[in-house]
């Protein structure tokens, strides 16, 4: 629920052990969301029930089963964040690689564009794009995807610039490889490690911001379970049912930690 600190921060904090717990949590989250999607949402009941046999985690303000929404909402938030991260990675990757690989005036122009885009906090940039698109889940995906692209582009520009001067790139150029071939066959395989790792970290950032925007009320239909919106709803009934806000927030934080932890581990592994 904040600025792109995860994306601008340093990614290299050493994490040594394999992130099995993190991967298991993410798998559980997605599998749970998928399975719960197979059964229809339980019908509305009396609102704000405490956990009981009929509703294991109680019911929310509108009498909907909270447990069902928590599990279904996780996968939904995850997929929205995944979509927006994918847009950032594709667009930012192209942008950054083009700048870092091309060099010269093209690099100057593309880098200045990055500066301009980075001068506005990505969450605010996403908010403005959202203002232009109107609220909705697709709009959130696109807005954060575009808003986060520059952050990613800057990282990838540095990576591409680093690889560009390597001997094998020189060899490829000398052998007459075209620009496209140089990038696809020689540059991409050599930055795919950091690309995937930065992607995972960027995804953690996207997840925070998806939840932020939907918390503020920019998401899709109110009936669709989604963690950010659920946190906003749970906040309204915090006095009566504090476990709801606690549950959603803890699940959100845990998922973000899990994704980042995996990303850091992957980044570290690729450095060695």
């Amino acid at each position, binding site marked *: *629920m*904040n*600025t*792109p*600190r*995860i994306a*601008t*921060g*340093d990614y*290299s*904090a*050493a994490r040594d052990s394999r992130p099995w717990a993190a991967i298991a949590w993410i798998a559980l989250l997605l599998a749970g969301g998928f399975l719960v999607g197979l059964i229809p949402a339980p019908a509305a009941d009396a609102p704000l029930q405490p956990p009981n046999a009929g509703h294991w985690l109680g019911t929310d303000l509108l009498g909907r089963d909270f447990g069902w929404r928590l599990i279904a909402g996780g996968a939904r938030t995850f997929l929205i964040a995944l979509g927006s991260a994918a847009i950032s990675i594709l667009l930012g990757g192209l942008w950054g690689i083009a700048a870092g690989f091309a060099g010269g005036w093209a690099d100057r122009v593309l880098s*200045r564009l990055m*500066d*301009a885009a*980075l*001068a*506005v*906090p*990505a*969450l*605010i940039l996403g*908010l*403005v*794009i*959202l*203002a*232009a*698109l*109107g609220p909705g889940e697709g709009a959130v995906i696109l807005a954060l995807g575009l808003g986060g692209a520059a952050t990613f582009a800057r990282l990838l520009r540095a990576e591409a610039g680093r690889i560009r001067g390597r001997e094998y790139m020189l060899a490829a150029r000398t052998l007459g490889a075209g620009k496209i071939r140089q990038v696809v066959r020689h540059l991409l395989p050599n930055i795919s490690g950091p690309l995937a790792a930065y992607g995972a970290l960027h995804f*953690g950032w996207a997840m*925070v911001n998806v*939840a*932020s925007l939907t*918390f*503020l*009320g920019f998401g899709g239909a109110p009936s669709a379970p989604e963690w*950010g919106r659920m*946190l*906003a709803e749970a*906040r309204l009934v*915090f006095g009566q049912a*504090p476990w709801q*806000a*606690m549950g*959603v*927030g*803890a699940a*959100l*934080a845990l998922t*973000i*930690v899990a994704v*980042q*932890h995996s990303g850091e581990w992957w980044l570290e592994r690729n450095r060695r």
Partner: protein
Amino acid sequence: MRYIRRILENLVVVWAVATLAFFALRLGRVDPLASLTAQGLATQEQAAEMRRVLGLDRPLLEQYAQYFGGVLRGDLGRSIFSGQEVAGMIGEAAAYTAPLALLAWSLSVAFGLAFGAVASRRGKGYAIGRIASAVLAVGAATPVAWSGLILLWAAIPLFTAPLPDPLREGLRLLLPAGALALTVGSSIGRAAETSIRDSRGELFQLAMRAHGFPRGALADWRMLRAAVAPVLALAGMEAAFLLGGTMITEVVFARPGLGRMLVDAVLRGDYPVVQALLALAALVYIVFGMIADFSAAMLDPRAGEAS
């Protein structure tokens, strides 16, 4: 000369951001007058009349020229909804956001550096380091909307307790600042953790140790100085990003301020307010970026040579 060029380049960036906001809003789907008519606050004719008065029916480029003519004369326009001058509104809201951002940032830097320094020593037989490292990892992933809620909840007894008024007011500022600082400080702390750990391997550290400087996490400021420089650069950037963070914080804690003003303005389509706030965000970012670069060069003598 270098600085003048940099300032000019940065002014272009601010202008580009404001321009982007200008066109994105007007070409977008949020129509400020549609919400008025939808709520029955204005008839179609009244809305059309307002559109004419506000100049929203004229060609985009003409509106653009008029807006930037005003900006160059120091006139940021008026809110479509309240009719107040945007500059005045920003001044009022900033009076709430500035203390929050300042306190949050100070807490973040203190918390981040302290925990980062401890976490950087994570190793065998140093459990505190591992704990600090884990705190930073979780803190960076904690949404402000959630940590704010927990803090509010934990502070309920304090609010019901008979407290002197100044203390209560202080608490009103400290809680949102604390929630914000947990997240912001954690990311600063994570950067500090890595930076300090990496700097331990550097030659100048070996040289200093050979000259008899003690080892240890906070052994000597001169040891930390070079490692702290990039962290401060990040902290400068974080200060600029606090405007984004205050959006959520101010909504959660029901405080007035710039962040909340921006959310409301975007939701309602208050064009002049959004444009001005975006330009302000870019300006703040650039100013802090320059301060951060400058202080990094002061702290680590090598930074100036590299750039």
